[in-house]
């Protein structure tokens, strides 16, 4: 059993949990993820990126948004409750090296998985610029943590309620165009549509760009192939070949279609959870 030792609500639908998982806390590297279940009899297996870990306390941190039945049930658990299943660390770690100037772009909940990557990039001696985006001020998460890492922090909101009004692609484009602040690498994590447009933004400037993907998967070890996507014309499994890929090569349109495969069932499940009062 994996005990929840700390729970925080970061915004209306976003939660942070520190969970006891000593082996994963010791082994995990930036960019890796876990698969959890809230129930092993009928529960779904849900992949979530590891936002942070404390190998001494033996805990990992996850940050999640309540989007489906499982995350809604997860959000109802409290400190002291335990998860019956937590598998990891999965996926290949981020390739961390000194590139010079690295820009990290995190959109919405994507800021959480960006945190350990930005941390590792900074530790490797890079200048790190962080661009964080959210729909509005209330939905912005982990500003303090990111500010500690960033050489420069740029915040954008869709409605202008905090930071600059606009989309993350705007400051990203400006950086790419700048004479003496052009990034040597961009890392983008967020909704697929945001990652797609970030990739389109950096491509004309030949800024190498990495996207971290979160697709539908069951086992997370290469067995089911549900997570497959097309990268540079080849089929790849996000769980074992990724989760990070060259964003300029990823077929984001295909990935978005594949993510919607179970939309009708997911909507029904969400309704069911809401109606049964699990998510009060």
């Amino acid at each position, binding site marked *: 059993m994996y005990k929840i030792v700390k729970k925080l609500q970061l915004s209306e639908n976003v939660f942070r949990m520190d969970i006891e998982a000593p*082996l*994963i806390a010791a*082994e995990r590297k930036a960019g890796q993820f876990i698969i959890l*279940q809230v*129930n*092993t*009899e*009928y*529960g*779904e*297996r849900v992949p979530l990126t590891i936002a942070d870990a404390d190998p001494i306390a033996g805990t990992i941190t996850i940050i999640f948004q309540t989007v489906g*039945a*499982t995350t809604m049930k997860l959000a109802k658990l409290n400190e002291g409750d335990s998860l*019956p*299943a*937590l*598998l*990891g*660390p*999965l996926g290949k770690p981020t390739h961390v090296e000194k590139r010079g100037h690295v820009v990290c772009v995190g959109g919405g909940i994507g800021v959480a998985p960006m945190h350990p990557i930005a941390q590792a990039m900074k530790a490797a001696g890079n200048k790190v610029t962080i661009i964080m985006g959210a729909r509005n001020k209330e939905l912005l998460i982990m500003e303090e943590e990111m500010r500690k890492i960033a050489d420069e922090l740029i915040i954008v909101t869709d409605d202008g309620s905090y930071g600059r009004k606009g989309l993350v692609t705007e400051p990203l484009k400006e950086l790419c165009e700048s004479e003496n602040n052009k990034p040597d690498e961009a890392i983008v994590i967020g909704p697929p549509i945001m990652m797609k447009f970030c990739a389109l933004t950096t491509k004309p400037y030949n800024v190498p760009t990495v996207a971290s993907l979160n697709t539908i998967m*069951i*086992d*997370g*070890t*290469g*067995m*089911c*192939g*549900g997570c*497959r*996507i*097309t990268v540079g014309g080849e*089929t790849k499994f996000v769980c*074992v070949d990724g989760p990070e890929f060259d964003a300029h090569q990823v077929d984001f349109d*295909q990935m978005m*279609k*594949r993510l*919607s*495969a*179970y939309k*009708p*069932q*997911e909507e029904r*499940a969400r309704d069911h959870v809401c109606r049964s009062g699990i998510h009060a």
Partner: protein
Amino acid sequence: MTPKEKMAIEPQAMPEQEPQVRRHNMGEVATGYTAKQAMLEASRCLQCKNAPCMQGCPVSINIPGFLGAAAEGDFGKAIAIIKENSLLPAVCGRVCPQEKQCQAQCTMGKVLKDVNKAVAIGRVERYCADLQRESGNQEPAAVKPSTGKRVAIIGSGPASITAAADIRREGHDVVMFEAFHKPGGVLVYGIPEFRLPKSIVQNEIDNLVKMGVKVETNFVVGRTRRVQDLMEKDGFDAVFIGSGAGLPKFMNIPGENLVGVFSANEYLTRANLMKAYDEEHSDTPYYHGKKVAVLGGGNVAMDSARMALRLGAEEVHIIYRRSEKEMPARAEEVHHAKEEGVIFHTLENAKQILGDDQYRVRAIECVRFELGEPDASGRRSPIEIPGSEFTLEMDTVIVAVGNGSNPLISQTTAGLEVNKRGNIVVDENNKTSIDGIYAGGDIVLGAATVILAMGEGRKAAKAMNEYLASK
């Protein structure tokens, strides 16, 4: 009884759920012999001195011995004889391809010139195993005093279950590591409930636990811990790798990443392990296909097709590029699939999968084949007939063309030798290129059968017990 009298006994048909009933439920298709049937069927055995059936059995069960006991109604003795060689008779009685193994060699079948009239060895085996399990008369195997030595078993499928039991018997501490949240491997995620009830697999795991085997789920060796960490840091004296062949092969045809195309592994895992069929309770969804094409002709293809029927498909088509004779599936599974209404297309293969504007499957383009000369596998090779393309409207495609070896362990274990297919290379004792590390089952053989995996687990365990004794 004289041979003539034995030959006069009618081969006992397996009681089954009616096809039109069972295609709408998950209950077991074959409901099992009665005691009387089991005795009658067992008494058909001619007790041949040379026992050709035993040569057909990958683990050399004393078949005339157990059939002789069963014929007299001494099922306790019968199961004891089976268990001398096989740890999983309830499983093997159900899933072994008997018509290609023991029953293919049976003299009765040869005399009657019909392999289907051979003694139904598997069905009697199943009866004996079920009777023992259901009566609660099974004692877990005796365990010798503790040796203080520790063995890690990676995976919890048939090879691993067998190795764990045989190693634990010798008094070694055994920990079994499983990546999924439930142990059993392909027996729980792959083979459907209607062919192998999960309670039978759970019973085998429970027996291991009673013997003192520790089962660690949610532990993926290669990621949570590397094999070498298990030996160098965690104090394991030996490791058995029985991680299976979990890497689905695809056809590499256009349209394979469309929404509505699944590997059989994914389709079956959702339905079996994740219980997606139980929509009221399960959080894992399944794809509601109405017209389903399954590509392949093995047991996994049959399981997928029959699962699709049970999940509400209106039409299910098996598409296989050779003829029915070459199909690797058990004859009984093909027969059951046909009875349930699965439509068979042989000597046809998918060339591409076509999508609609929503990127969902709308059809497959197929091409016809004819059979040419035998190929490396000994089967007549299919040759494409140019210009024979045609289109079938479908909304779901399940790819069941086999599994490669999952590279997770070989990639993270320095010095572990694999062949060009990624299978772990072992010697005649199932020892790998690293001392103390053994491997068996599909990760060594490539995708094979439960009984072969079990045989490998047993062989490896014997060598590991000898290795540990000498250490």
